[in-house]
């Protein structure tokens, strides 16, 4: 397939990874001590990779823009992590997890990678428990599970609503152990601004110390990028304020192909926008769909009355409510995959049934669950004939034990009590399936530059299932990358230290300085946020939950024009050689302004609907996504050629040998 070689090992699916591990070259322990690796990003993927690489004996330098590795955005993951442990005995297996993930991704991911992920999922839980991660347990002392969207088994492990936090703190503690041993040097509050290539290989990075403003050179035998997703190209998303595409984009500009940029996940259950001041959006975990029922009023006049504050949702009778997911998708009901749930919410709101002031919200209602749990609890606590009040109280207690922190979060933001009145939710940008193209070894198209976690494109196709990003981050970091990278490094044992006083580093540093100076020199009259918000609006309106050719073409033009205006008119107070938060933002937004255009170009070229990519021109009669396997069963991988509009497309054909391509149905 042209210049894209996925390097998927031959042989039966279930044997590929074991066989590959047995066949790849190893670096002996004495030589590992002479090899340096840079890991940019200390989230689950980067933190886990850094810890294992250091444990194996390599010298590791980590970089993150926060003040501590513990604060990477993985910390915010709420709901859980999947693993095919089959502890519930409900028929789960690595094959089933593999199948669900490929189907959930709408058949746009690479079979071999996904199978490996499902295989390794089992080890993750063992590993984390050994590290002291306090997962939720049942009374018998065994690990507890819950269900997530798009699957029919219960395989999600969790730690209340703070699963990401607990897993990240596990990886952070593993890193700390290696820092204490002197095997990891952590550069916090350091931002990578470019990757350095020597003779075509990744040999280091240029980073900026965000406290002093100093520009630094760091050399290494290989560079791992684990810098997270680029959802903030939409300005508003559930990502952290600092989440950015810069590391990946800079690598793209130096030769790493960018795959499927338009595959973005819009999460159905987020707290709706409250006003123009909004700086970010807050997710309400998908786990809530285990117990919450989603609805809007059945009649337009009721929706209108609710919007005007004349009617309360609790006053609406059961038959006047439209539980539209249960109606349209009886088999999966409220637990359909995210892309399906999000589009269905948009469809109802566009049709005029939205329930908040702006008409962009639907209800997530726990009253039925509260009653059900209340009755159950009353029975098991031996209460005969409990009154309604008691049942409600008991039910609320059960719901609180399950989701207490989410309910508290909601109440603080919205100022309404979700135990008493249904939550209001609306879809928001959440996750990016696209990212740097990597082969089976997680190597990008730049030799020696690897990419792990959300930053790569590899495992989730056109839509990610809930609780599988944490799984991917940790599988990549703990169990895949530390071994596959050895194959590459085995050829580097005689290279010696990578010097940074060379022409390649001189040039890369001068480039970075030039770009920073260019931004400072604009001395215009608009803040960085002004441009970021404008970009976000174009993206949301024209590249969001549904897209069409006309809108995408407009987006391409508008983003290019905005980029031009940005360089001419941005205003950044302060200088380069000091802490300068506006300069940091400007550098990130500059890269979003390029990525956004490639995003729209990718969306325009993909003339089908699949997963999170819904093209209005390609849908079935009842509004479901219409995939085109004949023409688009490939990874769209873009090569940088100057302006984003000049990017060149390379296709990696996706071969399905173990799964039959079907129309996804959750009915």
């Amino acid at each position: 397939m042209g210049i894209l070689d996925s390097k998927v090992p031959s042989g039966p699916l279930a044997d590929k990874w074991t066989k590959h591990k047995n066949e790849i070259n190893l670096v002996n322990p004495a030589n590992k001590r002479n090899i340096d690796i840079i890991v940019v990003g200390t989230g689950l993927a980067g933190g886990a990779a850094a810890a294992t690489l250091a444990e194996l004996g390599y010298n590791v330098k980590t970089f993150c823009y926060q003040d501590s590795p513990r604060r990477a955005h993985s910390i915010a993951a709420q709901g859980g992590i999947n693993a095919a442990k089959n502890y519930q005995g409900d028929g789960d297996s690595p094959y089933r997890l593999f199948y669900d993930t490929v189907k959930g991704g709408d058949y746009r991911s690479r079979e071999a990678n996904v199978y490996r992920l499902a295989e390794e999922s089992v080890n993750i839980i063992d590993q984390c428990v050994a590290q002291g991660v306090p997962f939720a347990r049942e009374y018998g002392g065994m690990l507890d599970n819950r269900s997530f969207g798009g699957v029919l088994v219960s395989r999600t492990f969790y730690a209340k609503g703070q699963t990401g936090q607990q897993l990240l703190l596990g990886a952070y503690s593993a890193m700390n152990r290696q820092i204490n041993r002197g095997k990891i040097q952590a550069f916090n509050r350091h931002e990578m601004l470019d990757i350095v290539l020597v003779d075509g290989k990744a040999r280091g990075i240029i980073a900026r110390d965000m406290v002093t403003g100093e520009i630094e050179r760091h050399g290494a035998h290989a560079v791992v990028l684990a810098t997270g997703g680029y959802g903030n190209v939409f300005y508003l998303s559930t990502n952290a304020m600092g989440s950015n595409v810069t590391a990946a984009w800079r690598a793209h500009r130096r030769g790493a192909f960018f795959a499927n940029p338009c595959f973005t996940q819009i999460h159905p259950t987020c707290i709706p926008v409250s006003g123009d001041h909004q700086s970010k959006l807050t997710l309400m975990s998908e786990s809530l769909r285990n117990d919450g029922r989603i609805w809007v009023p059945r009649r337009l006049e009721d929706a209108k009355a609710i919007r005007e504050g004349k009617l309360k949702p609790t006053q609406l009778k059961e038959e006047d409510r439209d539980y539209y997911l249960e109606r349209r998708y009886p088999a999966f009901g409220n637990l359909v995959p995210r892309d399906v749930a999000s589009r269905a919410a948009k469809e109802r709101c566009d049709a005029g049934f939205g329930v908040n002031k702006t008409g962009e919200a639907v209800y997530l209602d726990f009253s039925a669950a509260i009653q059900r749990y209340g009755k159950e609890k009353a029975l098991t606590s031996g209460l005969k004939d409990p009154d309604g009040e008691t049942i409600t109280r008991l039910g609320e207690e059960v719901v609180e034990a399950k989701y207490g922190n989410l309910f508290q979060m909601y109440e603080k933001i919205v100022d309404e009590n979700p135990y008493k009145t249904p939550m209001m939710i609306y879809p928001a940008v959440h996750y990016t399936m696209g990212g740097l193209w990597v082969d089976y070894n997680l190597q990008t198209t730049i030799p020696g530059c690897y990419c792990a976690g959300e930053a790569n494109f590899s495992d989730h196709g056109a839509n990610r299932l809930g609780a599988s990003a944490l799984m991917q981050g940790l599988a990549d970091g703990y169990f895949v990358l530390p071994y596959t990278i050895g194959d590459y490094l085995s050829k580097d044992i005689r290279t010696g230290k990578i010097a940074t006083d060379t022409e390649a580093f001189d040039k890369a540093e001068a480039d970075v300085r030039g770009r920073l100076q260019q931004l400072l020199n604009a001395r215009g009259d608009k803040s960085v946020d002004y441009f970021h918000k404008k970009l976000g609006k174009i993206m949301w309106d024209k590249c969001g939950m549904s897209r069409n050719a006309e809108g995408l073409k407009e987006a391409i033009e508008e983003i290019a024009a905005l980029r031009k205006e940005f360089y001419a008119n941005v205003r950044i107070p302060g200088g380069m050689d000091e802490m300068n938060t506006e300069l940091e933002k400007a550098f990130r937004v500059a890269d979003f302004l390029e990525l956004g255009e490639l995003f729209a170009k990718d969306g325009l070229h993909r003339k089908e609907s699949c997963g999170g990519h819904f093209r209005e021109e390609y849908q079935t009669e009842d509004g479901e996504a219409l995939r085109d396997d004949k023409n688009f069963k490939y990874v769209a991988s873009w090569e940088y050629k100057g302006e984003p509009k000049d990017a060149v497309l390379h296709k990696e054909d996706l071969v399905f040998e173990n799964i039959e391509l079907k129309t996804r149905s959750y009915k």
Partner: protein
Amino acid sequence: MKLLLKIWRQQNASSKGKFVDYPISGIEGDMSFLEMLDVLNQQLIDKGEEPVVFDHDCREGICGTCSLQINGEPHGPDRLITTCQLHMRMFKDGDTIVIEPFRAKAFPVIKDLMVDRSAFDRIQQAGGYISVNTSGNTVDANTIPIEKTKADDAFNAAACIGCGACVAACKNASAMLFTSAKVSQFALLPQGRVEATQRVLSMVRQMDLEGFGNCTNTGACEVECPKGISLENIARMNREYLMASVKG
């Protein structure tokens, strides 16, 4: 809402800081405290002035990055939340709000409201981990059953976000609540017992080296902690420390 903000401005670690008054209007109750500061910063940038620097990232109360002392209280007047979760509906029209960085010798100011909390990382590096290899050759997770109440207590201790509010709240700038939360998490789990002695000794030693003060049991830390980390953890760490000192 119209407000008067009195904000600590300090160019860098070595310069002297001072309070500067910023009147602000058009603030809505639905805004978060940090969104209110965004509005101020937008105005400052429009005037060509340098924005107020403050730490923040997730803006949903979990990363532990945000860290303001608001009217003398870490994370402001509300309870069990971080600064980024504080909403302006907690204030009234005409209020004066004093905004400072977290104050502690071990948390030097970097710029304006941003402080250096790397001392916390070093305490964790001294022993806040279980020495297990991460290469995947571990036993099946369910071969270590753990009593639910123990697991829940360990989780509650592990919920600490490392924000430093406990230190800022304490008149001695003690880091006992933070350190004891990690010590407790591992002390409560069978996996963590193996290294318990060494862990508590190393972490407490590092805590003292960093220049945090002593604990005099005033309990201000527990009141201000956004994650409800309980004083019981300090009692547990004291027990662990005593036992370890006897042994070690």
